């Protein structure tokens, strides 16, 4: 499996965030996207997840059942945790496990893996920010997806939890998975490539008018 991105351009309003972006990510590798705030790291991940449309360019996941429309083969973990505060941790995770399909770990195993064992019955509203984030990471484990898109995955995590998550991510990569992660924290995801989005900023950041 291979993620191929060619001549990708992203526009927010009149500003061109990046253009001509291209990379290839092989199975069993992670791509760490870096760059200053506002260079389009989150926008890139949303485009890869199929949640936003690129201004131009092609993306495909070679080896997926539908190489050009591969949202169903992707885990997207954005800034938001996608939990319901009124439901318990276990209910939230069990819902995503049933909803996403292609189940992998059970709810109990996934919660154990992220270090939340014993908190299953607590409503998510009373969990701490770090615990909520861990529960969001557990969502990656309950459904099987080859490509993980992670937007600042370790926000609010303590050092031990960061190391624990890096270990899970390395296991995913070692099993032939792919990871694209936007992060400021130095994380060891195993064999990885780097992408500095700051270098892809167009010389003229304001988009040209098409009708001119």
């Amino acid at each position, binding site marked *: 499996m291979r993620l191929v991105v060619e001549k990708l351009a992203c526009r927010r309003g009149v500003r061109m965030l990046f253009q001509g972006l291209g990379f290839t990510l092989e199975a069993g590798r992670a791509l760490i996207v870096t760059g200053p705030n506002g260079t389009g790291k989150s926008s890139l991940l949303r485009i890869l997840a199929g949640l*936003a449309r690129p201004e131009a360019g092609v993306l495909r996941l070679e080896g997926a059942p539908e190489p050009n429309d591969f*949202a169903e083969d992707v885990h997207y973990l954005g800034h938001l945790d996608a939990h319901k505060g009124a439901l318990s941790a276990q209910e939230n995770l069990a819902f995503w496990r*049933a*909803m996403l399909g292609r189940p992998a770990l059970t709810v109990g195993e996934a919660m154990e893996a992220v270090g939340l064992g014993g908190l299953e019955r607590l409503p998510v509203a009373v969990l701490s920010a770090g615990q909520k984030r861990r529960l969001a990471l557990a969502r990656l484990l309950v459904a099987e997806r080859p490509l993980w898109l992670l937007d600042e995955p370790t926000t609010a995590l303590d050092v031990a939890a960061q190391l624990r998550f890096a270990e899970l991510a390395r296991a995913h990569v070692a099993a032939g998975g792919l990871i694209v992660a936007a992060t400021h924290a130095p994380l060891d995801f195993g064999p990885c490539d780097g992408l500095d989005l700051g270098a892809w900023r167009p010389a003229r950041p304001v988009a040209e008018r098409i009708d001119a």
Partner: protein
Amino acid sequence: MSRAFLALLARDLRLALRAGGGAGLGVVFFLAVVVVTPFAIGPDLALLARIGPAILWIGALLASLIGLDRLFSADAEDGALDVLAMGALPLELVAAAKGLAHWIATGLPLVVAAPVLALLLNLAPASIGALTLTLLVGTPAITFLGLIGAAFAAVFRRGGLLVAVLVMPLTIPVLIFAVAATSTALGGTVPFGTPFRILLGLSLAAMVLGPIAAAAALRVARD
């Protein structure tokens, strides 16, 4: 796919029934409208019996719209909508599952409460039967038409008013034929079946078109 549909339905029902979920709000509003009306109109039993079905339907219509503006925006705000949109379940069915859950949590209690509340408005037994039947058939139409407004509310990130303005005009035909069907029970030349069948048709059309339109609105927001 049906597993995902049922999972979403179960989650939304559970959320609605939990504290602060708002399942009871519609019924309380409905109750308030119906209880206050006889005091406002006065002790004219004949008048109450004549306008009772209309009052009950107006109450049910407004009560059905309560909470609709949060239907998709809650999921949009906590990021769940992004994850839902990427799954194998098409957005149309996501919308349908959420609409169905909303109807079971707010519409169905109205249908159950209506026969009891109808007594307060001096409705004849035949009228009560006809009214309950039209509510059972008509409230899903309102909820599923409301999905369109709910989707727009999530897209524009503000929406209480938007839902009312967008959805109310669409629900007028439902209101007209539902009240017409109920009043045939009091006599007249038109049989009950005529307006009732149109109401059924409106309801079925809304159940199909509502989720499709809502999904289209949610997709536009992503581009």
